[in-house]
């Protein structure tokens, strides 16, 4: 279980959310709605150990998190993957899509071309597309690469922060199907953050209002 208790978090000492608690059980998809600017993305950053909360605690499968960002133990950090709304600002523009998807495996010191090929095929990135750089592909194609990258280290929890907001209905349906099938294979817990209630009604097992 990915658990956050009584989280107050913000930037420069100024809280943008306070007293928020949430649980993401393995194998479940928890939907989280709420208007833009309410702090959903800040909560996602706390849950992915990328932002140390001002107060409150996060625990991962029973292990309390005591260190954050690059100081967090790799084993904990890689247990949670985060997908952003804007794929273009989430990738290094100098890398090819193949390098982008391979990056976490290379950083972890266990490159696996076979796994990269398998995930790339699953998100629908074929052949030539993998040799391109971000400026040569569409937002939808780039978000497919970001999803493949997020799955490379087999995270126990996947946080999808407005993952499909910029995408057309067909690409949205495809990416959600990939997340669901990954979840079925691995029993991962998913937090689906979106302001689109219609999408959450279809995707999530249960949807929490904001603040959760």
């Amino acid at each position, binding site marked *: 279980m990915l658990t956050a208790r009584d989280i107050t978090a913000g930037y420069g000492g100024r809280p943008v959310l306070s007293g928020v608690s949430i649980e993401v059980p393995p194998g479940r998809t928890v939907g989280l709605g709420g208007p833009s600017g309410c702090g959903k993305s800040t909560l996602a950053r706390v849950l992915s150990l990328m932002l140390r909360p001002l107060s409150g605690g996060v625990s991962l499968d029973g292990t309390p998190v005591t260190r954050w960002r690059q100081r967090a133990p790799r084993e904990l950090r890689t247990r949670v993957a985060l997908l952003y709304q804007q794929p273009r600002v989430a990738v290094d523009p100098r890398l090819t899509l193949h390098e982008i998807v391979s990056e976490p495996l290379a950083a972890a010191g266990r490159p696996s071309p076979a796994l990269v090929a398998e995930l790339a095929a699953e998100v629908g990135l074929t052949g030539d597309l993998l040799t391109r750089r971000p400026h040569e592909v569409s*937002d*939808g194609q780039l978000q497919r690469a970001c999803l493949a990258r997020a799955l490379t280290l087999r995270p126990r929890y996947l946080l999808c922060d407005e993952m499909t907001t910029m995408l057309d209905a067909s690409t949205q349906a495809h990416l959600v199907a990939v997340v669901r099938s990954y979840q079925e294979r691995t029993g991962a817990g998913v937090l689906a953050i979106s302001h689109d209630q219609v999408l959450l009604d279809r995707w999530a097992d249960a949807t929490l209002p904001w603040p959760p």
Partner: protein
Amino acid sequence: MSVDAKLEALEALEVTGLTVSFAIPRATVRAVTGASFSVRRGRCLALVGESGCGKSVLAHALLGLLPRNARVSGRALLDGRLDLLSASPAVLAGKVRGREIGLIPQSPATHLTPVRTARAQLEEALSELGSRLGAAELAERFGLAARDLDRYPHELSGGMAQRVANAIALAGDPGLLIADEPTSGLDRPLVERTMAVLRELCEEGRAVLVITHDLRAAARVADDIAVMYASRLVEVGPAAEILERPRHPYAAGLVAAQPDREFVAIPGMPPELTALPGGCAFAPRCRHASEACATLPAMTAGVSCHHPLREAAHAHGA
């Protein structure tokens, strides 16, 4: 017929055979191919399609805002008198943009200059356009209080920034509005509000062209929908028809992929705009495809397909 009535009957924008390509090293990107459509005053046309299909390039071509390596052909008549595609950059800058065509930007918060107040930016637009309207007067029409105008863009909420951008787009009282992904990244209540404002501007007698990937946003505002796939328009018609009984298999796939419908993706990926096939570009992903699809289908009765879906097909979820 009065002059007003004549203007009313004219197409505010009539686009015929609009084609845009870009020369890049070792390849040609065909971004828009043979697009024909029109928008009448008091009507709204939504141009829908996935990212990378060419819809933003189409909008930029109409505004004369394409990069220098673009090759443009076809015709885009504004009010039946001025061809936007052959007009000089000076005419487009001095007489068309802001005065005849207003652009509602994709991301108002980044469209506004961060170091100047909303008032300064609105007043600049009004004075550039030689408008007699005052900033406060225009702002009030868009539900902005005078004190909101003294804020800097980072102090405005998303909705307020959108209203400032709308006020600037409307400063020159243009008859045609082009909104390029006006709801991208907004939450649903803001999407609804933005669409309601666009609808109102349309009801006032302006022609509105909305470019969006969001079918639900299109459904809220559009009288007509044009579906674009791999640089071509594949289906054009009344919004209700296309959303309820799409006839092109791609349009049908897009409609069915919505989360409140079947929520199933269209198999495969669109072709690259550098390597478009000679025939129907959707054929490799289409389960109705046949040998006929190796030749390009003509646009007939609003649909460009050799095997348009019929009523009966929809009963089976096609």
